[in-house]
């Protein structure tokens, strides 16, 4: 039986991402769905609001491609390497197009997704005191504790129209398991109206049910499951492949020049019809070089059978 949730990337993006949407491709350094971002570029979506703690290379690429009008974020950079030129130019000079920004701290962004997922009007946190962040972002507001024990700051819920996450595995119903850094994918997915899960591997439901503690997202809230091995490259997937740090270093040069970015987008996004072609273009040697040096399996646990 074919489950209607299992879809091609092309169909999932075409059906579930609409012009003007707020889109969150989450995953903190780990499990970033570059494959979905590239498909959004190829389909020339427009006027998106892009939310992510760390815009990373994928939002630099998407913003250079003109899909977004606004960015919601908490740390803007090429992690461990440098800056994101396409985004910086748009903020610093408005060239070639202005970009609206809404800025928080990491905890603020995590709190926003948490409030969105839990259907709360705000998330309280002990941050932002005596800083300029609430000055430039009036959505960060000081509130009095209703119990008379001082002030905290509040951030509003963030409910993306679409959240897209990459994971090690899911079953055809969208029950999704992740290991390694968990970031805030769970919160971002539960907060969203629509959810796309992209996985390295589609597994049988029994695999999921054998290890329920590892499930971060239930199929109940998932609209599409896309099987796209190596879909997080140049970011990484714990246990499957490492970050392609050479690519992050290369991007530091590419992003300094708008022409270089557009040439890269042509060669690696527009001229390819999907991730399979991208992986072919990378070549087997590059792919092989990113595999972990050795296996490091977890011990297994016994859940017990209770009849």
């Amino acid at each position, binding site marked *: 039986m074919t489950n209607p949730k299992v879809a091609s990337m092309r169909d999932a993006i075409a059906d579930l991402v609409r012009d003007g949407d707020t889109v969150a491709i989450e995953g903190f350094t780990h499990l970033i769905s570059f494959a979905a971002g590239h498909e959004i570029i190829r389909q020339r979506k427009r006027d998106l609001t892009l939310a992510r703690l760390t815009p990373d290379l994928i939002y630099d690429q998407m913003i250079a491609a003109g899909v977004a009008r606004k960015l919601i974020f908490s740390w803007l950079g090429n992690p461990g390497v440098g800056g994101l030129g396409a985004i910086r130019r748009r903020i610093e000079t408005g060239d070639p197009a202005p970009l609206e920004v809404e800025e928080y*701290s990491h*905890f603020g962004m995590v709190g926003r997704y948490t409030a969105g997922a839990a259907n709360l009007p705000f998330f309280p946190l002990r941050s932002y005191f005596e800083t300029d962040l609430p000055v430039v972002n009036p959505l960060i507001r000081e509130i009095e504790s209703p119990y008379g024990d001082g002030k905290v700051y509040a951030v509003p819920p963030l409910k993306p129209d679409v959240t897209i996450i990459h994971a090690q595995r899911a079953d055809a119903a969208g029950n999704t398991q992740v290991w390694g*850094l968990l970031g805030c994918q769970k919160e971002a997915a539960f907060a969203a109206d629509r959810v796309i899960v992209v996985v390295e591997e589609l597994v049988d439901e029994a695999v999921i049910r054998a290890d329920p503690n590892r499930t971060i997202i239930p199929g109940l809230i998932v609209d599409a499951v896309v099987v796209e091995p190596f879909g997080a490259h140049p970011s990484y997937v714990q246990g499957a492949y490492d970050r392609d740090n050479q690519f992050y270093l290369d991007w530091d040069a590419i992003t300094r020049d708008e022409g270089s970015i557009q040439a890269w987008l042509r060669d690696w996004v527009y001229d390819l019809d999907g991730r399979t072609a991208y992986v072919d273009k990378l070549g087997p040697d590059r792919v092989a070089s990113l595999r972990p040096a050795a296996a490091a399996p977890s011990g297994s646990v016994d859940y017990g059978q209770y009849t």
Partner: protein
Amino acid sequence: MTAAVHGSAFSKSEMMIVAAARELAGQRVCFVGVGLPNIAVNLAQRTVAPDLELVYEAGVFGARPARLPLSIGDPTIVTGSTAAVSMYELFSFYLQGGLIDVGFLGAAQIDRFGNINTTVIGDYERPTTRLPGSGGACEIAINARQVFVIMRQSARSFVEKIDFRTSPGNLGGAEQAERIRREGGWLGRGPSVVVTDLGTWHFDDDCEMRLDSLHPGATLDDVRATIGWQPRIAGSLASTAPPTDAELRLIREELDPGGAYTR
């Protein structure tokens, strides 16, 4: 740029990293920031603070990285760690819950009271330079028990007035900082150490930065030429001990063999 002391040459960056690592002696739980803090803390775990628990904002407690993490989200911080948790748990329970002894931050600009800017140079709306922003730094500065800063010293970075306050330090001085921390119920007592490529600074009773130790090869003229205010110099100014062969070997062979941070 190297100085030869006791027979072994080392760079200013290596001296800075070593001095920062030594400041972590005796500390238990350290929240690690990206870049220079990352290498300094990893060096400390291999030298003066073997029991140091490394906490990464990406959601790891008790990391034992087998290589220098390329970023603060590297897979090597997960494998072999004590706990991999969601960022919600990390920020809510570990940081805001008061378990972090030292938050280790970098900065683009810092003032004499240790207030930090990592957001913009110039005007916020149309900045001369758009910097990365807070990340977790703002809440680390408020909730970690104390804050260590590691950064290169220059007239552009050590300024009389920072362009944007991303992370609060000692605000306008001791009186204001102590009152606001007390009234606000902050867990942290703010910045306590600033390590630069020229020396090591601590904070006086009035919460202003004081140069306590000058690194080998650096002079007070260098310090004065790279700071936007009249610096306070300790009466008993010390000379920082140069890196040992063991520290240099760890940096060059294990932590940063490519020299990305240390050249």
